[in-house]
């Protein structure tokens, strides 16, 4: 039985990308091998380690436990879409400042998982962060500095959101005034 390849088109980090792949191609291999986005890593084969975590339509998922064909049409963000060297995302900046990484292999997945956590719970306690990390494994750090990093990132992101809200509110007021 000949099995045809499928064209899979996704929006990754704001850019539309597509490639023809076997139906069995795992999303993580599609991202890494077909699209060249090697920031997402593979650490296990049983969906435990979470090194491959990305967001799909805003939700943290393990890209080793999803087929590329299942992602067709989805909005994907990988670590490459978080921030740049010169303009790090608060999560990246906090991991840097708090020494939340050592070898850096699990880090992209951990950060993406934590982006997913903060979406669910923007102001998590230490315990909630530790529970939120059930789906990732870091062998280097003992997690403590990751927890500090996530706490810091949550704070920065919350403040930024507040400012944003204020800005929006302000601009709305200005807009109304103009009427």
């Amino acid at each position, binding site marked *: 039985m000949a099995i045809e390849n499928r064209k899979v088109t996704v929006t990754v980090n704001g850019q539309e990308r597509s490639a023809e792949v*076997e139906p*069995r*191609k795992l999303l993580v*291999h599609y991202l*890494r*091998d077909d699209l*060249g*986005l*090697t*920031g*997402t*890593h*593979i*650490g*296990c*084969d*049983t969906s*435990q*380690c979470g*090194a491959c975590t990305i967001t799909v339509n805003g939700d943290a998922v393990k890209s080793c436990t999803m087929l590329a064909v299942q992602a067709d049409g989805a909005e994907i963000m*990988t*670590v*490459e879409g978080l*921030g*740049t*060297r010169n303009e*790090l995302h608060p999560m*990246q900046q906090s*991991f*840097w*400042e708090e*020494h939340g*990484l*050592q*070898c*850096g*292999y*699990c*880090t*992209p997945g951990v*950060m993406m998982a934590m982006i997913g956590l903060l979406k669910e719970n923007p102001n998590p306690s*230490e*315990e909630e*962060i*530790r*529970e939120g*990390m*059930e789906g*990732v*494994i*870091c*062998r*280097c*750090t*003992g*997690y*403590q*500095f*990751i*927890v500090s990093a996530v706490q810091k990132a949550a704070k920065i992101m919350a403040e930024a959101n507040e400012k944003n809200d204020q800005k929006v509110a302000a601009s709305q007021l200005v807009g109304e005034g103009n009427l």
Partner: protein
Amino acid sequence: MANAVGAPLKRKEDPRLLTGNGCFADDIQLPGMLHAVILRSPHAHAKIKKINVEEALKSPHVIAVYTGKDLEGKIGPVPSSWLVPDCNLKEAPQYPLAIDRVRYVGDGVALIIADDRYAARDALDLIDVEYEVLPAAVRQKEAMQKGAPLVHDDIENNIALHWKAGEVAEEIMENAEVVVQESFYVQRVFPSPIETRAAIGQYNPGSEELTLWCTSQNPHIHRMVLAGVLGISEAKLRVIAPDMGGGFGGKIGVYPDEALIGYAARDLGRPVKWIEQRSEHFTSSNAGRDEVIDVELAGNRDGTLTAIRVKNTANLGAYLSTMGPGVSTIDFGLMITGAYDIPHASCETFGVYTNTTPTDAYRGAGKPEATYQIERIIDLYAREIGMDPLELRKKNLVRKEAFPYTNAQGLVYDSGDYEKPLQKALEIVNYEQLRQEQEKLRKQGKLIGIGLSTYVELCGFGPSKVAGAIGFQGGVWENSTVRVHPSGKVTVYSGTSPHGQGHATTFGQIVADKLGVPMEDIELVFSDTKAISMSWGTYGSRSTAVGGAAVAIAADRVVEKAKKIAAHELEAAVEDITFENGVFQVKGVPGQQRTFQEIAKSANMAWNLPEGMEPSLEAQSFFDPENFVYPFGTHIAIVEVDKETGEIEWKRYVCVDDVGRVINPLTAEGQVHGGVAQGVGQALWEGAIYSKEGQLLSGTLMDYALPKARFFPHIESSFTETLSPVNPLGAKGVGETGTTASIPAVMNAVMDALKPYGVKDIEMPLTPEKVWRAIQNGEGN
């Protein structure tokens, strides 16, 4: 930059890693690259009757299939690099693929090369191997028995080595008022870096150079060993360790797999990539520990310790790994007295072949086991004589005045002040009050346990003549070149091979202080045998104490030369030139100065150098330390045991470590946290489980529990600083202290909690069921 050393600087390596711009092995894509998979034995012990590869070769994607027979005579066995002397060491040859017999589940049987990652995996199912299954020897004490299945036919009783160090006269034991005896099993665990192993080979038929990217903690050892295995000149073999997702000892070893990939790339003339799968990692990457340790500690009722006698029966697996033979002998046997002044000691080690994956160094390598047995037996001794384990420790710790201290096994501890971190830790936990609370809670039926570990460990091996004397097939010196470019920017080459430790930052801090240049002007180069002449890599907490010292010395040499140039330009005597914050200044003559950058330009242009001076500003150093370094400290664990389920709840974990000079407190603390996590992992959750037939039952991350974030409390870590006299930095080592100290701290805490039930030992890991059973048995008694 002044005072970089000692500052908690953010790491230079992070922006790259945080943005997904790291370059790990699987990120490397080469034109025309092929993919390799290795068919591995499903049996612990079997004869290979027949291998049928035809079906696999029919696949249009399959380029080649190699079996052990195909490679006979073309590729040599992979040797061990630690041939411990005077122990009747018997090394069985490990061929990169098994030829007629497989000796452990995971032993390589065939190498498949295909043009596609998925097709390579498919081909694995197309190879048919006929085996004749043989009985297996699995656990070391059974494997030593007469009549046990032989892993290698010519090695009697499966004994790979029988090593002895030290003697305790029988009358010392007989005359002792107290002898406490216990047998501890330090179980087999898996290093489990989150990035598994990998290798990529690329052969250039024009230059006949083979480049091998592989997950190695020591690329130069890989080059040295693999050059021999593959029959290629070291000058034609380039080994590069790309970014690496952790190692923990598991990537020290020179593995058959790496030799295979190098061979196939050369044979096929195309790049070949091999990425180990996680479940493959469990059976094919070297494991750690697996030692049965029988201890007798002798002394008086007043707590004076007089002698320790230890027997270690170590499971070395089916073959001798790169460092395997040294772990349970040298690393372990010379450290059995720990931080205590025990005048007499002896250690006897049996290294045993079994039908299991080889064991090698894992974070601490021998020292966690040595620390485990002494710290555990100290507690049991204290219990026996009715003394608080703290008091017994205090009574026997090596005194500050005794350094340099020679232990009973002849090792010379470089420097120490063991009371200092102990006192600090006791103050943090408020020990006396804690004991009172424990007593109170015990009366309420709550099982609180307090565990102490006052450890010392050896690391930063040296000098090389000692390495030679203990059979290590390499040196233990380190190498660094500090190269100053015309602009004053600096490239530093170091022989260490970091994979998470942050050497680019800590070594950068050393150089920044020495040269007075900003951190951002310093680039570090590691892990490439073409860039760094020779080196011995990163393991055994040696990087800062040996590698960092080499960097410091090379930087000093740069300054020395620069000073001469400055003196020449400023028309002053060299003795009259000071150098501070990157400025050369004539003493007492303000304005008469040159910046480091100006001198860098002068040196490189060479328009006006002192008579007879060679151009350029660059220095190399080869540092061979005069002795090991011995970090020490105190860890205290406080736990509560759930009487009804045996679950262990962490209440607090306090550690005070003395690792000599702390270059960067942030990264040092990170090392302690990670080390503690791995030690506690061993104590509570991790452990290989083999069936009687030698099948690994805990062979996926669904069964083998790596510590997760929610398992831990906040670790309270701090340092004291007692400098080491054996290197110019005064540094010791921090990579392994956490693991070494924490295993017994946690175990002692749980045993203390279970003291009311008379429980003395439970085999690690302390799964709740085992703890519950111990309580049940205790209640029964």
